[in-house]
């Protein structure tokens, strides 16, 4: 099997996983909207949690994976690591768009404002803009070695922001609530809500895997096209 066939197989498998995850997401929507109780003080707006928190978790995971793969690329110089880290970064940006739109929609009825320049929100916006810059940088550089090396350095530097963003709610005064799950104590949420939240995180994680396989295939197919174009010119 040649590179193109391998990439197309990965793309096909990724598309199937993405499709299944989107069906799962529809199931999570039904469970969250119809079978999960409404929280007494926040009302229906609290159910935005089942979209916002899973997307936030997986977006930070995607950026974390980008950082780790970037570090591995700088050590091993394997182009597949560069392709995977770039793919993970783009998915992180896409998920961050969901994160940064659902967050303010939830904040408005609960905090009385769409946005607050506090540590959690500002650092999340900064991470998003950093990775938009990462993607712009990759688009601007045509030489493969330079593009991979420069973006890997940026990916590693951004890695430090991921744990920082998680800890901002403990280190700074912020409107944003503390984590429900990722903390030393037991989850602070009734069982039925917790099951919905965990299902949503699982589905978004599977969606990330499907997206990653599809996006990786796109990068490999673009590479093949570039090589063919270069071969045609020489």
């Amino acid at each position, binding site marked *: 099997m040649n590179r193109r066939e391998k990439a*197309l197989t990965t*793309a096909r498998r*990724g*598309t199937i996983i*993405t*499709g299944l995850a*989107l069906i799962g*997401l529809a199931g999570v*929507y039904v469970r969250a*909207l119809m079978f999960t109780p*409404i929280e*007494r*003080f*926040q*009302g*229906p*707006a609290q*159910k*935005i949690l089942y*979209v*916002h928190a899973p*997307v936030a978790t997986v977006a930070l995971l995607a950026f974390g994976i980008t950082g780790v793969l970037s570090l591995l690329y700088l050590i091993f110089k394997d182009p597949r690591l560069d392709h995977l880290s770039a793919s993970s970064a783009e*998915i992180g940006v*896409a998920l961050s*768009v*969901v994160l940064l*739109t*659902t967050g303010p*929609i*939830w904040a*408005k*009825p609960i905090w009385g404002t769409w946005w607050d320049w506090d540590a959690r929100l500002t650092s999340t916006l900064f991470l998003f803009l950093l990775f938009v810059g990462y993607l712009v940088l990759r688009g601007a550089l045509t030489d493969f070695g330079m593009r991979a090396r420069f973006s890997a350095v940026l990916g590693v530097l951004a890695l430090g922001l991921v744990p920082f963003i998680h800890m901002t709610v403990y280190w700074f005064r912020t409107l944003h609530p503390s984590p429900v799950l990722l903390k030393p104590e037991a989850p602070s949420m009734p069982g039925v809500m917790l099951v919905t939240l965990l299902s949503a995180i699982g589905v978004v994680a599977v*969606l990330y895997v*499907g*997206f990653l396989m*599809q*996006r990786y*295939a*796109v990068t490999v*197919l*673009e590479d093949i*096209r570039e090589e063919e174009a270069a071969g045609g010119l020489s």
Partner: protein
Amino acid sequence: MDYPDNGAYMVAAYIIAAVILIGYAALLVYRIRKLR
């Protein structure tokens, strides 16, 4: 039980999330087809 009347925000957030995620999935399928 009386809840705050903010269901419209919930609906908006769910619709926007679905549109972005399905839109990105469609974009990836389009890019793969274009490169095939």
